[in-house]
């Protein structure tokens, strides 16, 4: 590590309206190091990286690249300085091959005036692949690649343009555990080649295993920088969460659900269920499952293994090909989702913006969607009751909004999620299907969501908790099943299933 940093960020401030997102951040990034950027959701990680990549302009502060002061007006300015960002949602062009995506729009491609320009660039790309030891089929079209492979194409695209600093935003969120291992190896070889990497994540374990230094952000401030091997995990946690680490200890958390208290009354039964994969969906096959009153059944798995398809099939938004669904002792296989909801089923979809929120309507109006036909006074909707109920929900869930009448589209992601959860609470369902309900929420919010789920199941609701986060599922479920390629493993009591075994099932290394 040289003494002169590659990038020097000095005293960056950024406000969004009243909110101070960054309060004077200074940070150096050296050549050939992996810097972990750790912090809860809303700590300012993404904002800081967007500034470094030229997507936002800072309100104050300076950025130096190799000692030279720079003003990034747009990402193309940052790219000229060798700074690249791989976003959480990849930005590749579908319908083109991996190779075409790598060379597309690059300087090298622009310099070749020949109809055979692709062929001329091919050796360059191939030698680059060999140098960094990245395995990828260059001639596959993007949509044929797994998310992990797509991520490698993104990295190659940046390298081909001469990246000296690679910003990876939540790189492990959407990819499988094996792909995470491959990613770690790639990052190591990039590091050896002198390329700097900023690894942005809220997943402590991964950041710790790979970073040379870890910068911890909290509420827009840089709390501390930890050097590899010179700290304890506990001090890292304290930097991240402040003095609430104690209250967050996982043990206390886990035992707050008593696994033996479930009622043995069966609320829902899936018999040999196979679902219509629809257009490009995953085929869910031969699912057999019993769900009891007052239990949380967790379904864990790597994203894209049929979770959404299964959830939609149970609630009735997707056709059943084979088998049957029995709820409350009645065959509901051929009943539409409206009728199922009337009988006491409820659904919180994964995509909260596209499938959950009514952005132009008020927070209160959002909370009654689904039960709005029951809140009457004479001929009209009972607005005073609705607003009173909404006010209560806002207080108990701690939703940050100026009023129950504010437009729900103006809320932040976490508060939108809480609004949708309030909707589920208001519906008082007997069976709740919840898909990735804590994704993108910070730890405290996540915890309060878990508490709500627990209270609901104490009151007798059966909850099917589908989540990409294995630890979450293990922590709060009574029983856990793993979904892999559309098949469910036999549910085990969560204390009977250890993490290692679960990971093996999730990745298909081990079969049930």
């Amino acid at each position: 590590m040289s003494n002169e940093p590659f990038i020097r960020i000095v005293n960056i401030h950024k406000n969004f309206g009243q909110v101070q997102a960054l309060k004077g951040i200074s940070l150096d990034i050296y050549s050939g190091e992996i810097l972990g950027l750790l912090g809860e959701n809303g700590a300012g990680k993404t904002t800081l990286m967007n500034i470094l990549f030229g997507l936002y302009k800072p309100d104050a502060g300076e950025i130096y690249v190799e000692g030279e002061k720079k003003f990034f007006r747009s990402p193309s300015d940052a790219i000229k300085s060798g700074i690249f960002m791989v976003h959480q949602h990849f930005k590749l062009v579908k319908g083109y091959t991996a190779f075409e995506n790598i060379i597309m729009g690059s300087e090298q491609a622009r310099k070749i005036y020949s109809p055979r320009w692709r062929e001329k660039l091919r050796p360059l790309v191939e030698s680059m692949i060999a140098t960094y030891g990245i395995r990828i089929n260059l001639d596959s079209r993007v949509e044929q690649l797994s998310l992990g492979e797509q991520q490698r194409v993104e990295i190659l695209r940046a390298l081909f343009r001469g990246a000296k600093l690679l910003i990876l935003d939540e790189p492990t969120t959407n990819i499988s555990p094996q792909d995470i291992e491959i990613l770690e190896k790639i990052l190591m070889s990039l590091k050896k080649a002198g390329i700097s990497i900023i690894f942005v994540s809220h997943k402590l374990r991964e950041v710790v295993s790979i970073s040379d230094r870890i910068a911890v952000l909290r509420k827009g401030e840089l709390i501390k920088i930890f050097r590899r091997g010179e700290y304890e995990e506990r001090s890292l946690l304290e930097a991240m969460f402040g003095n609430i680490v104690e209250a967050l200890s996982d043990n206390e958390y886990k035992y707050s659900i008593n696994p033996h208290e479930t009622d043995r009354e069966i609320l829902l039964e899936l018999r040999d269920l196979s679902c219509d994969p629809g257009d490009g969906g995953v085929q869910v096959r031969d699912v057999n499952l019993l769900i009891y009153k007052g239990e949380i059944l967790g379904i864990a798995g790597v994203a894209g293994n049929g979770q959404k398809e299964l959830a939609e099939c149970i609630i009735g938004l997707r056709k059943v090909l084979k088998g049957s669904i029995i709820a409350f002792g009645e065959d509901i296989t051929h009943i539409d989702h409206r009728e199922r909801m009337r009988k006491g089923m409820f659904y919180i979809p994964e995509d909260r913006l596209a499938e959950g929120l009514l952005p132009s309507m008020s927070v209160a109006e959002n909370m009654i969607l689904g039960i709005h036909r029951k809140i009457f006074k004479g001929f009209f909707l009972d607005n005073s009751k609705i607003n009173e109920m909404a006010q209560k929900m806002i207080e108990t869930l701690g939703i940050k909004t100026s009023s129950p009448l504010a437009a729900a589209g103006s809320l932040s992601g976490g508060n939108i999620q809480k609004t949708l959860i309030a909707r589920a609470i208001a519906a008082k369902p007997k069976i709740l299907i919840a898909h990735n309900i804590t994704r993108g929420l910070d730890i405290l919010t996540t915890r309060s969501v878990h508490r709500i789920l627990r209270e609901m199941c104490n009151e007798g609701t059966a909850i099917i908790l589908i989540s990409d986060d294995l630890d979450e599922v293990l922590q709060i479920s009574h029983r856990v099943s793993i979904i892999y390629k559309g098949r469910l493993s036999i549910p085990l009591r969560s204390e009977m299933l250890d993490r290692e075994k679960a990971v093996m099932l999730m990745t298909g290394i081990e079969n049930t």
Partner: protein
Amino acid sequence: MGLGESLIKYSVSLLLAFLAAMIIISLSGSDPLSGVASIITIPFSNPDILSLLIQKFSTILLMSLAFSISLKAYRFNVGIEGQFLLGAIGAAVTGILVNAPPILMPTLVLIAGLSLGALWASIPAYLLYKFGVNEIVSTLLMNFISFYLVDLIATGGLRDTAAGHPMTIPIRIEAALPTIVTSPRMSIMPVIAVIMVLGIGLFLYRTVAGYELRASGSNKKASYIYGINVKFRETFSIILGGALAGLAGAMEVSGLHMRLISGMQSNYILVAILAALLARGEPVWLVIASMGISVVEVGSAALQRTSGVPSELGLVIEGVLLLVILTFEIPKFLRRSFVKEVSLR
């Protein structure tokens, strides 16, 4: 966005719109300042023109309400013109041919217009419901059919042979709407329009059907998932709009012209859509937007008579107003959706 910010936005837009008007007035050789001043003051200058203003306002208000109701369900019923004409046909034919007790006649005429307007809208609505035919295309095309239907009736058996322009003979005296002022004659048109605004406002914001209609317009997919019959609500919003536009047509026949006249649709569709977009379909704001547009329409028509400035000036003012306001909106929308995308990661 606070109230102050909107106030500034709308004031700046108004200012620019009138600035554009002044340029056009001076190009046609008149004094721009007094020209603009007279656009605003003429409509209130004497009882006759004031009554004209109120009649225009009533029709524009009802028409913009008709467009707004489908706008709330995120559907674009640009067939309000045809629905208006069908309403006028229904009213004229009923008012001429039906011989019911006098006390029932006005109601009958209005109901005939309302039903025919709804019926006309239900054709594209059905096509949307059944086959997913885009309502913008189908409602617009239905307008052209309605023009020829009017001509057919106005030049057919009910034609007024004494008139030089295609129009029907007058409706029966008993079929005329009651008046609230006798000189100049003013029917209960504005009363009906305002009652409709209140009724629709109540419907949209206080009933389950209205809630479902707005929810469908806000997020179709979420509404479907949580049990709303989105297709039905969309269809319904177009038919309800057709009924309101039909009512407007019937009102003009029985409260103003006393007959069906070819071309009586004027430019209502244009100004009604303008008003609805300016008010974003909110019933209360529709009253203000419709009034403003009526003043400009009546004022610029009067200006043409007094100083020869083309009356299209009115459309220029309204058009610039909408453009500037939309321009204000666009960057905000882009900014917001981008920030949201980033903050949700």
